[in-house]
């Protein structure tokens, strides 16, 4: 472990070169922009910057791309909080509390919470990465399909907390989300399913346009009703200009106290989730958010609670850091972005794989130390831009409507470079709007859409490997523990409800 820190120090020496600091900063700024823009994610950013970096030496290049990837995780929260449009999928859960908090008149604090939660979460993730380096990645590998299935089932229980007052509607919408996600190529058998002979549907409903539509565009359609009220408020002079300074966005001591416990919990869990192959930052933020539901929050979750933003954002960033462990130690990309980075490593003449730490220690440790630096830079930049971001909120709603509509369309196109993405966005926007009108919450649909395909894949792989035997889900201690956690999570609410019924019966009969 001490050895690791010594290597880290030498890594810092490499990073503290004016050129490296420069590209690190540039990467951080670009990453924030890309992350905040709906439709552009770290994948697009890294893929498109990759050719630019061929001229650099590999270390400088990875510092820039690492910083970009990393700061991108901050950016996703911005549009989620201010406009209720998640910039990327991990920000879905951030929007659940971030947007209500901004509406309550504390947009600055909401952004600040997101920034600090991201920072602390990221720092914890990177620290764990430094200490354990390759060991952690090997641990993650030992998770088989049955274990992953159980973890995903646990993550899925988070949906039940978002369902709202009508459970039936909640279940309907969750199932709908899962069915929509099942359209397209079935990875395990390699055949298209439910594509109804449509060549576009063969590839499935693309995810980012789907969220941009179901959350963003649906939001714009609703926003139109607030236009009149907004205008009158402005005319009558009762409109309070949102305060624009960083100082007024600062969190109070009390806010910090609320923020810290969820961040710590979520970061530890998030790092671990990030290490698991194929789970990634989205699962990190969702599991973090779900867990926070189990703890006390000062305000109810989903109504603008600091705890909610904190849990989601720190889960996201720590998972992003954790995902570097399998990438560096084993050459296994945890996500699409990881895969592009891996492609980059090969282009620079490095051989990513289990030997990277041994053959190119400079490179690995500079990357890890650059993550520390990138994290600090991004925090500084992210805090500095808050006043400018909040200006977005002072734009009259009547102007926001056409602007956001255009951003949704341009963003949806950019995710897949095709009009199909735009049409998916448009249709899911209308569907989201109609569902909302009828009192169906859309958040469960989005979570189900993300988690269900992973769940199905792992479950079916478990069945194939065990030739269809159910015992594969309970034949080791770890699996039994996971199964028990899952059952407890599922059964406690019903058990509690049952107890209440019995109690009330007793009290009436006595």
């Amino acid at each position, binding site marked *: 472990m001490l050895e690791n820190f010594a290597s880290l120090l030498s890594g810092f020496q490499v990073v503290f070169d004016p050129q490296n600091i420069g590209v690190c900063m540039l990467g951080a700024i670009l990453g924030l922009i*890309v992350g905040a*823009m709906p439709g*552009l994610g770290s994948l*697009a*950013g890294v893929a*498109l910057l990759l050719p630019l970096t061929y001229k650099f030496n590999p270390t400088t290049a990875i510092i820039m791309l690492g910083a970009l990837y990393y700061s991108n995780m901050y950016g996703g929260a911005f549009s989620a909080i201010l406009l209720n449009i998640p910039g990327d999928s991990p920000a879905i859960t951030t929007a659940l509390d971030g947007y209500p908090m901004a509406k309550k008149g504390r947009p600055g604090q909401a952004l600040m919470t997101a920034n600090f939660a991201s920072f602390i979460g990221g720092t914890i993730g990177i620290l764990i990465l430094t200490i354990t380096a390759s060991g952690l990645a090997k641990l993650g590998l030992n998770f088989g399909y049955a274990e992953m299935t159980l973890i995903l089932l646990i993550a899925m229980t988070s949906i039940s907390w978002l369902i709202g007052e009508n459970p*039936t*509607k909640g*279940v*309907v919408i969750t*199932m*709908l989300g*899962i*069915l929509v996600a*099942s359209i397209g190529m*079935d990875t*395990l*058998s390699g*055949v298209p*399913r*439910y594509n*109804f002979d449509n060549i576009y549907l063969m590839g499935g409903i693309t995810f980012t346009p789907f969220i941009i539509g179901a959350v963003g*565009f649906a939001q*714009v*359609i*609703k926003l*139109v*009703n607030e236009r009149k009220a907004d205008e009158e408020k402005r005319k009558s002079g009762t409109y309070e200009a949102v305060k624009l300074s960083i100082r007024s966005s600062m969190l109070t001591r009390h806010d910090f106290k609320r923020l810290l416990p969820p961040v710590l919990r979520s970061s530890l869990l998030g790092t671990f989730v990030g290490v698991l192959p194929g789970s990634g930052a989205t699962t990190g933020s969702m599991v973090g958010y779900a867990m926070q539901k189990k703890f006390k929050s000062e305000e109810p979750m989903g109504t603008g609670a600091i705890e909610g933003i904190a849990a989601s954002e720190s889960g996201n960033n720590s998972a992003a850091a954790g995902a570097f462990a399998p990438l560096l130690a084993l050459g296994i990309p945890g996500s699409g972005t990881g895969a592009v980075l891996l492609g980059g490593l090969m282009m620079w003449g490095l051989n990513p794989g289990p030997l990277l730490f041994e053959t190119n220690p400079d490179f690995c440790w500079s990357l890890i130390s650059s993550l520390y630096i990138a994290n600090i830079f991004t925090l500084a930049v992210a805090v500095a831009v808050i006043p400018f971001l909040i200006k977005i909120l002072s734009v009259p709603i*009547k*102007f926001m*409507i*056409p*602007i956001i*509509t*255009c*951003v949704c*369309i*341009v963003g949806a*196109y*950019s995710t897949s*470079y095709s*009009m199909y993405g*735009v*049409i998916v966005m*448009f249709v899911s926007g*209308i569907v989201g*709007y*109609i*569902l909302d*009108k*009828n*009192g*169906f919450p859309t958040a469960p649909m989005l979570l189900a859409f993300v988690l269900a395909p992973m769940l*199905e894949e792992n*479950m*079916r792989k478990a*069945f*194939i490997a065990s*030739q*269809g035997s159910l015992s594969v889900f309970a034949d080791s201690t770890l699996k039994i523990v996971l199964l028990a956690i899952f059952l407890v999570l599922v059964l406690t609410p019903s058990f509690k409800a049952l107890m209440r019924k019995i109690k009330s019966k007793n009290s009436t009969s006595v």
Partner: protein
Amino acid sequence: MEKRKVNSRILVPIITAIIAIVFIVVGLQDFGFWEGQPTAAFFPIIIAVVLLATSLLCLVQMLRSNEDAPVYNRNELMVILGGGGIIIGCYIIGLIASCLLYLLLWLKVIEKATWKATIIIEVFMAALILGVFVFWMQVQFPVGLFAYLM
């Protein structure tokens, strides 16, 4: 007994129930359910059965309740039409042009915004789309029919 209102709220559960039935039927037809191991339709069919059951339950709830039908107003329809207009425009005059044209029409005709505000927004959006998406990210937006004709 008070007369129950049957209104447009029952549409959503009816539609989801139909979707569920389609997924069950198509799934069974194309893949079956379990053939020594789960088929491609195994998981969706289970989900569709749950969706069917809850949709029916939901329908019963709606029929019994007295809630009013949701109100869909004209303004909301305008936003949807605007979005649809841009999409059609993309195929004819290209994506960037139809976005900017839509902004112009929406701001001037629907919002009756001042020329100053309109121009600022047009320039801002053009800079955003061209600067970030086109030049930096090198997204090639569709240019529409006219580009080929001329």
